[in-house]
């Protein structure tokens, strides 16, 4: 087997194991209120940590990204759908960059 492909498969197996073990082994509903609360808070904390400040480096300029960030928050807060929030955020970045460059 080609060396690069071996690396790729090792990476794939490790990554899959991380993903599959909890979901297949934890088959019961957890009753403990602290663990349940911990799991309940995970998405908000993890995703928030990942979004900021990384979002500021996602586009060609931190300023366009900042506008995209604010636009996304406003529309998400007002209850716009996932697709609309993503598109409006892209659109605002596009428009801001037309003025910047």
């Amino acid at each position: 087997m080609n060396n690069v492909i071996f690396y790729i498969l090792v990476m794939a197996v490790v990554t899959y194991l991380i993903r599959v073990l909890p979901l297949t082994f934890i088959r019961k509903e957890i009753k403990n209120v602290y663990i349940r609360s911990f799991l309940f808070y995970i998405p908000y904390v993890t995703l928030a940590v990942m979004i900021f400040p990384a979002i500021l480096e996602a586009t060609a300029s931190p300023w366009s990204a900042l506008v995209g960030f604010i636009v996304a928050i406003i529309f998400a807060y007002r209850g716009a759908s996932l697709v609309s929030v993503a598109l409006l955020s892209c659109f605002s970045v596009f428009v801001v960059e037309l003025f910047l460059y």
Partner: protein
Amino acid sequence: MNTKIRAWKSGVKNGIPIAMGYFAVAFTFGILAKQAGLNPFEAVLMSVTNLTSAGQFAGLTLIASSAAIAEVVIAQLIINSRYFLMSFALSQKIDPKTSFFHRSIMSYGITDEVFGVSVSVPGKLNPYYVYGVMIVAVPGWAMGTLFGVISGSVLSPRLMSALSIALFGMLLAVIIPQAKGNKIIAGLIVISMVLSCAFAVMPILQSISSGVKIIILTILIAGIAAFVFPVKEHTYE
């Protein structure tokens, strides 16, 4: 049968912005994969089997430097450890009776974005919803890689820049609505972003890799929140 199709369709719909964002990120990945000496087949194979951005970018560097396999394993464990927590959270979001078969296929699709949209559906999570998201998102990731590796520069820089924020916009659309009626969640989001920023700018904390940072902050903030504000009932309803 009907609920399966409905869940699948709603998954497909929410998979579209993910696929767009994936295309842009994977495009960049494809360009770097080419620079690291991978051919189009290898680059797409990596994207399809790994389905993770940070892990794949790190993988390229390791492959280019002919790193030891143990090093590759440890790097992937650290960078992708957040999926362990996500998978743990999803284990409580699905029906406990969900079969091993469904669990093992769903697991393949646990990325930050697929997790985000999956955990935010009301009620229990139907595996077919996840499949719907995956059926659009995975080709977006694979096609982006392919185009990146064979072309180098097809998309205009303006379009790439605009598309690059799609995933962040989508993730915000996942967490912000929940913060609206819940002051605890709103506070946690703000605290998480502030601490994440501190990790990015403070001299010593700066050297911590992003995979480790995500795990440390998640366990710390969600752990403390669980003790201070335990959620009594209907956690996942």
